[in-house]
């Protein structure tokens, strides 16, 4: 059978990030905002950490276990938003979620390599895998916005 569909899901970029994850490993630095997310049904388990300085994500780390879609997207996400202003990161998260759901999204918004996850929209069963890292980022940003000067206790 034609594997066209499958190849739109598993792009070379994705498998590269899966096998060579970027920004992997956590820091024991309490100035980071840390978020840990688990998906108990499939066993995906991911932690992300961001440092916010002058309204920008200056550092980001991620670590976890899971399938290639969830783990690679954590790596891609970390590269995409590193150095980004918080308000721009929020726009990218929103745009990304619309894209993987198969909804209308802004194709002109620069999302870096995250654009390769467009194929997920044809695999609704894998939507959760593709969004776990972005949900974690969203929660970390929320933590920062709720408490911008707070030293993280996790």
């Amino acid at each position, binding site marked *: *059978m034609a594997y066209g569909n499958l190849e739109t899901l598993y792009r070379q970029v994705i498998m590269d990030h899966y*096998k060579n994850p970027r920004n992997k490993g956590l820091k024991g630095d309490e100035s980071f905002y840390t978020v840990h997310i688990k998906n108990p049904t*499939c*066993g995906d388990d991911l932690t992300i950490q961001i440092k916010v300085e002058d309204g920008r994500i200056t550092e980001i780390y991620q670590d976890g276990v899971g399938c290639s879609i969830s783990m690679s997207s954590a790596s891609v996400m970390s590269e995409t938003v590193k150095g980004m202003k918080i308000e721009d990161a929020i726009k990218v998260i929103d745009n990304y979620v619309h894209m993987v759901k198969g909804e209308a999204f802004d194709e002109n918004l620069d999302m870096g390599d995250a654009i390769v996850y467009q194929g997920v929209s044809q695999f609704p069963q*894998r939507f959760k895998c593709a969004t776990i890292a972005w949900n974690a980022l969203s929660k970390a940003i929320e933590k920062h916005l709720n408490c911008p000067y707070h030293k993280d206790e996790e």
Partner: protein
Amino acid sequence: MDVHSIRKDFYILVNSDLVYLDNAASSLKPKPVIDMINFYNERLGVNVHRGVYRLSHEATELYEGAREKVAKLLNCRFEEVVFTRGTSSALNLVASSLGMQIIELGDEIITSELEHHSSMLPWQNVARKKNAKLVFVPLDEDKRITVENFKKVLSDKTKVVALNYISNAMGYITPIKEIIRLAHEKGAIVIVDSAQAAPHMPIDVKDLDCDFLAFSGHKMCGPTGIGVLYGKHHLLQTMEPVEFGGDMIDTVELSCATFKETPYKFETGTPIIGGAIGLGAAIDYINSIGYDFIMQQDNILRDYMLQEMKNINGITIYNPKTDTGIVSFNIDGVHPHDAATVFDQENVAIRAGHHCAQPLMRCLNQVATIRASTYFYNTKEDIDRFIQAIHKAKAFFDSFI
């Protein structure tokens, strides 16, 4: 018995190229069962036990007739069959009623790391609340429960033994009869999770002498939302109800109430009428197929599947000595969920995950596995397509190395 004529009873097998190998999660539903559920909903659709009119009487006959069919299937008394939502709610009923009544500080409850969460967690909860101790049968090198290892944890403190009859993740048949005999010597009560056994092998509760046994309808050609708790009559009699309300009472005063006899005191509210009637039809269907044929099919398909899988390099089978048609494996270097997407592209339905058995996954040092599980309507052609899908998944992910 001819598999190809049996397959005609299953709409989805006739009208698609689906290879269905997720039978340990749920079986497909044959037409006679669906027809019976439709008959109840369309022609009767009324409540049981209370209406004096003819329709209600007819519905009651069918509902209680289903209980009779279960009693025959298990070789027990009519009053010993309690209808529940499924195996999980049946096992929970025993723990939250009998468990909370009899377990005391320092008592020991034996279970295993091979259990489905539904067999173990209700007792973990009782143990926590009562400061009792949860004790795990050490699994052997194949991750199997053995009589020998059971003896190592059985003691005078053992009050309850909660174990599976067939493991949902590994397909092993537990030597439950001997375990029950030994447990009874210590006066312990034995609860058998038979969710995987009831669809695949005949069960005689008199012969096993188990105290409780639970199974679900939907894994044996019946509908979802119906299950059975078998309990020895004298034990059910001593158990207090955990849900109170309609249909389960005898007399209600303002400050107290008395309850109906077993099993009705456990069936609060309008019962699962359509579900039970559907289960009755499923039991008739299974009997028409026959357990001999079901077991023979499972064995033939299991042997063929293992033989074909052993020829594939780069896969790890976790239960090569499985007793049933349940095979757990992984493709080396490929996460089971990634593999599962390729299987889905091939229209081969398998399960990828922890199979509600996280402690076992830890024993296997795996986050998850792929599980293929057969039933009597599967064919060797199904296994061929499944094997092809493994090759395709391997080739696809190898291309990225």
